[in-house]
């Protein structure tokens, strides 16, 4: 298969799969802690870190002069993924610390703090970026990539870096699994039995920062926030168990990553946005069709309930009419409509009752059959005994 032979495609697919797995898994905790948008903040906030790292380690940067001879690998030639990633990591991390500090120390709520942190960090990054561009730094390729992503440019070295850092993040998640689970579901309880909740918050967000930074180069800033939210949101619909959710989210992330890579090597489209549309599609399908929580099943259940209730209502109405009038004459559909207080679909329900053998019509006048009378009687007795039981409980 093409996927295993084509060098470029293999790199892209592997890279996007890694970012899908890591951000999908860690996104679950963000989703459960109602911090989905923190991912958005982190990915925007990474920009100044990237630019500063670039300035320090470009050809004439201070970092290069200090460390260049010792660690020549740090110097940014065409692009230095590790140095830029570390810069992004520090800035993303700093932004979450500041956002958490604002939420904890002021009356500003999470949404305001996130919006503020995100836009200010990005603005500062933009300012530094233009400073770099206008002041003759060389080799600024790779900066634009960081903003909008360029999966096609992934080379084997990048994929290895992504794999190593991603593995560290996943191992971190597994090591603190029990702790993270507890602070995500019941923070107060975790604090009361002596868990260092603040430290755990910071460790968890650090892992999230790592997950995001891995993906920035491949899919870019805006689209990376989708990779934190969407796989987790999709997986949430399939299960109530955290472990299953994390695995499912990772799987969804990987599928959309590889799928996007395969599609865009065949059709000339940008990879990042295609991946995002794929994962969004998965999320929407999960919302609609997942067993138990799927919206479509909900609608189906509602429809069935409504139909059953109306059937019983019409049946009872016909029965009451027969009792009150004590005649063998039938009743027109309009009467039944009035008794149903203007509900729609009465004609349909009557037809249904006829198919069941419970009612029949003569010249548009409806009556119950023998079986229909019995069924209605049973229904009314049931209702009465329920009401009696209810009254007993209330007393």
């Amino acid at each position: 298969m093409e996927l295993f032979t084509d060098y470029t495609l293999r790199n892209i697919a592997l890279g996007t799969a890694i970012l899908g797995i890591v951000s999908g898994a860690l996104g679950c905790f963000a989703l459960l802690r109602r911090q989905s948008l923190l991912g958005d903040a982190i990915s925007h906030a990474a920009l100044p870190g990237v630019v500063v790292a670039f300035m320090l380690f470009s050809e004439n940067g201070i970092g290069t002069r200090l460390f260049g001879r010792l660690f020549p690998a740090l110097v940014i030639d065409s692009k230095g993924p590790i140095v830029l990633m570390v810069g992004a990591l520090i800035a993303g991390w700093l932004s979450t610390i500041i956002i958490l500090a604002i939420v904890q120390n002021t009356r500003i709520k999470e949404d305001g703090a996130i919006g503020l942190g995100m836009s200010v960090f990005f603005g500062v990054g933009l300012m530094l970026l233009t400073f770099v561009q206008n002041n003759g730094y060389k080799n600024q390729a790779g900066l634009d990539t960081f903003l909008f992503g360029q999966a096609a440019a992934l080379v084997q070295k990048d994929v290895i870096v992504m794999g190593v850092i991603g593995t560290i993040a996943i191992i971190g998640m597994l090591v603190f699994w029990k702790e993270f689970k507890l602070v995500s579901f019941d923070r107060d309880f975790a604090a009361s039995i002596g868990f260092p909740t603040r430290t755990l918050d910071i460790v968890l967000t650090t892992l999230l920062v790592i997950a995001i930074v891995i993906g920035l180069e491949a899919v870019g800033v805006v689209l990376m926030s989708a990779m934190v939210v969407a796989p987790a949101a999709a997986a949430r619909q399939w299960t109530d168990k955290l472990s299953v959710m994390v695995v499912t989210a990772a799987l969804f992330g990987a599928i959309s990553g590889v799928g996007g890579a395969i599609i865009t090597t065949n059709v000339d489209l940008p990879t990042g946005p295609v991946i995002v549309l794929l994962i969004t599609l998965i999320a929407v399908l999960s919302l609609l069709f997942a067993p138990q929580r799927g919206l479509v099943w909900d609608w189906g259940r509602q429809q069935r309930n409504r139909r059953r209730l109306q059937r019983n209502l019409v049946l009872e109405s016909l029965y009451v009419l027969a009792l009150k009038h004590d005649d063998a004459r039938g009743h027109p559909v309009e009467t039944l409509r009035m008794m149903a207080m203007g509900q729609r679909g009465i004609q349909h329900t009557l037809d249904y009752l006829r198919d069941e053998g419970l009612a029949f019509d003569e010249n548009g006048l409806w009556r119950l059959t023998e079986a229909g009378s019995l069924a209605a009687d049973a229904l009314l007795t049931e209702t009465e005994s329920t009401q009696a039981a209810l009254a007993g409980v209330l007393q």
Partner: protein
Amino acid sequence: MNSDLQIMLLASVVAAACVLPGVFLVLRRTAMLSDAISHTALLGIVLAFLVVINFVPGFERPLDSPLLVIGAALIGLLTVTLVELLSNTGRLNQDAAIGLTFPALFSLAVIMISSLPALENVHLDTDVVLEGNLGFGVGTRSLWIMLAILVINFLFLLIFYKQLKLTTFDPGLAASLGISPVLVHYGLMSLVSVTAVGAFNVVGAILVVALIIAPAVTAYLLTDRLIWMIILSVLIGVVCSIAGYWLSIPLDTSTSGTIVAVLGAAFGLVFLFAPQQGIVSQSARRRNQKWEFAQTALVIHLQNHEHEPVYTDEANVEHCQEHMQWTHDFTERVVHLAQRENLLKRRGDVLFLTDSGRIRANEAIESV
């Protein structure tokens, strides 16, 4: 018109226009909707642009056409509606609904830009998304559009002030008085959409978010009154925009980015030094609380034993120190502070309550 003046005027108008709805977004905890709207504005602009070049003949500069603003604003409303729909299903929190919606619409826009031949020659590239073109001098047309948006926002605020205020602070009461929170919500979101789209072209997506959120949260730390929060936010937004513009010239940096950086610095200052809500005054208050509590504990102790024959033993400084389990230095300082506040008098090593000390003790006991 002088071009410096024109840019400053435009920046101020944009700032004021963004800030007005921003105050309510922040108070309603829906600030991140502005982020979603400003991103999906790109899709709106792309779609509206396609409509304009195909169906409106003879358009020379379609990128700042009012039609474009309106068309794109509709996409903003669509975004908000999708977010509401998703979070109303009860399957997702609002923040997850936002995080799911806008990247998808943004991706759609990016794909369209990169693949539709009709959009090839448009100046609709990443630079506009990032920083707008404020720094490069903008046409008077943008100024007029933003001015119109500012007037609309201001009038909306003026006319529906009561409704906005009520639905923001007490939606239940508002609903019972016959004001529909939903209607006000969508009204406000229409404003945000129109403003974001209009400003998007001038200052870029991120500055829109910054201008909507940053001045409002800064002012939120400075006052408890809505009307002052609005006035302060507008002031902060306008002053920071002008300062940012002037700073960007010698630094030779992006105007939008520099304005955002100044907004961030202003927030940082307020975050640290705001009179009531600032970190410094909060920690000072916390420190004072410690001393105040110690003084109160001391006067209560003294009052408890005031009518006992062994009072001079109980009121001995060393005994108090032992009784309260304080250190020597701490006790000396508490006694010193209490004397300064005229809660007690010290004769030798024995402490005597003053009248105000008794009042303080009684108040403290009653409040429990």
